[in-house]
């Protein structure tokens, strides 16, 4: 065995993961699988829908497959997040959005969850550690609670409190900064 010093630093992260070239090949394979799955899908889809699904699919698989951590891969992951976010907003607005009072709140709560969790998926903590993090966390939770309340108020104040408060607390707990290791 060689001197441990070099091995410690060289083996940091990289030895556990696939080689960068293998990661890229895997990504291309998964992209092709996604493409063919959409192209030959039994559910008929318009070209716009296929593009939207593909962009979201790519934003989801990229951080899972590409484990080489550097400024380039992080920037690409962020770019895919931006692209997937706008696609989700456009798509859901076009297909499921109903301009009625209670549903608008539910839709906003849905978008907030998806955008925060997608950011979390690519490894960005929207809520940083420390005081600032708690302020951001509480502000996001208040937005979530108000959005949810506009839907739950339809069922009355007791249901709003019994359902809205626990769901908001779960939301807050989920977005608080966590230690990965």
């Amino acid at each position, binding site marked *: *065995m060689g001197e441990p*010093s070099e091995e410690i630093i060289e083996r*940091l992260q990289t030895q556990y993961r696939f080689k960068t070239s293998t990661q890229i090949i895997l990504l291309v394979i998964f992209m092709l699988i996604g493409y063919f799955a959409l192209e030959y899908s039994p559910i008929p889809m318009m070209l716009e829908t296929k593009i939207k699904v593909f962009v979201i699919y790519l934003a989801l698989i990229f951080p899972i497959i590409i484990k080489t951590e550097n400024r380039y891969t*992080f920037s690409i992951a*962020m770019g895919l997040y931006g692209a997937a976010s706008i696609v989700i907003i456009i798509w859901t607005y076009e297909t*499921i959005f109903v301009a009625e009072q209670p549903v608008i709140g539910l839709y906003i709560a849905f978008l907030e969850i998806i955008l925060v969790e997608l950011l979390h998926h690519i490894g960005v903590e929207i809520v940083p550690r420390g005081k600032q993090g708690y302020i951001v966390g509480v502000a996001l939770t208040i937005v979530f609670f108000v959005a949810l309340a506009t*839907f739950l108020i339809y069922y009355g104040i007791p249901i709003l409190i019994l359902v809205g408060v626990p769901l908001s607390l779960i939301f807050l707990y989920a977005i608080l900064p966590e230690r990965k290791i």
Partner: protein
Amino acid sequence: MLVEYLIPIIIIMFAVFVIIGWKIASVGSNLEKVIDVIVEHFIDERRFTIAKLKEYSDLPEPVIEKQLKKLVNKGILTTSKGGWYRLKDPLVFLTEKDYIRALRITRDDNILYGAYQHPYFLHIYFLGIYGLFLTIVAFTLAVYFNLLPSVRAYLISVLPGGENTLPVFLVFLIAFGIVFVDALDNIIKGWAKERYSVIIGELSGISYDQSLSDELSGRISRGHITGVDIQISPLQKLFNYFGDYPIGDIVVKVKGHKKPIVFKNMPYPREMFFVIRTLMLGSLGWRKRHARTLMLWRAKGLVPSIKSE
């Protein structure tokens, strides 16, 4: 939306967020300068103050303080009363509370590696996280495609707006499933590593918790380590390829013990293995040589390019 509009919007958003990502991932020259001063002058010091750092840096005190705060938030430095800072070794992943506990119990030893073993991690994790989420998705799809007609009819009857509201409610259900799974992920990880600390000290050897309420009662002194080995199961290997951080089991053979002691699902097992090996060999040179790279890695979560020596 038409493809002619959709594609340019996607490209613009991609480009804007690539630029944002590029800015976020930059280390920052001030942070780099502060790290350089710490590595060059204070790596072997027990503790230091901002005033001491200022002697070796041309940065103003508030700027140094801001950078030190960042390093504290990233878990690289720890603070104590009187404005003292202390450098943690880069392979110490303990919480502030557990780090102080480790220092107290090892009598202020130089802690080279500190992390939590996750004895039950993988099975509970995969079952809890993916099992639950897949159940929520399956339920939602079953309701949407009318495979559960009574549930669908009930939801339509109670939702304001009836059938029009159902799709929004179902996508919200999936989204909240993600939040619930994320919260559960926090609980499982928090619970799994609650007190199963494993600490490797320069002089104290390996100290570890044997139960949830333990206070590092497990001890293996340096001289009693007769062998060390890494074991990575196929499930751990799969997790390492695609998971957040690598894990593996570390097997330590101890003089006088028939059975080796196994530390389950340790983060960065190869690094832990080499720390134990260096402890056995009594060589800590790697720590000094690679401190800068390791600190930058911990500060940004990104591995900087490594120059081979």
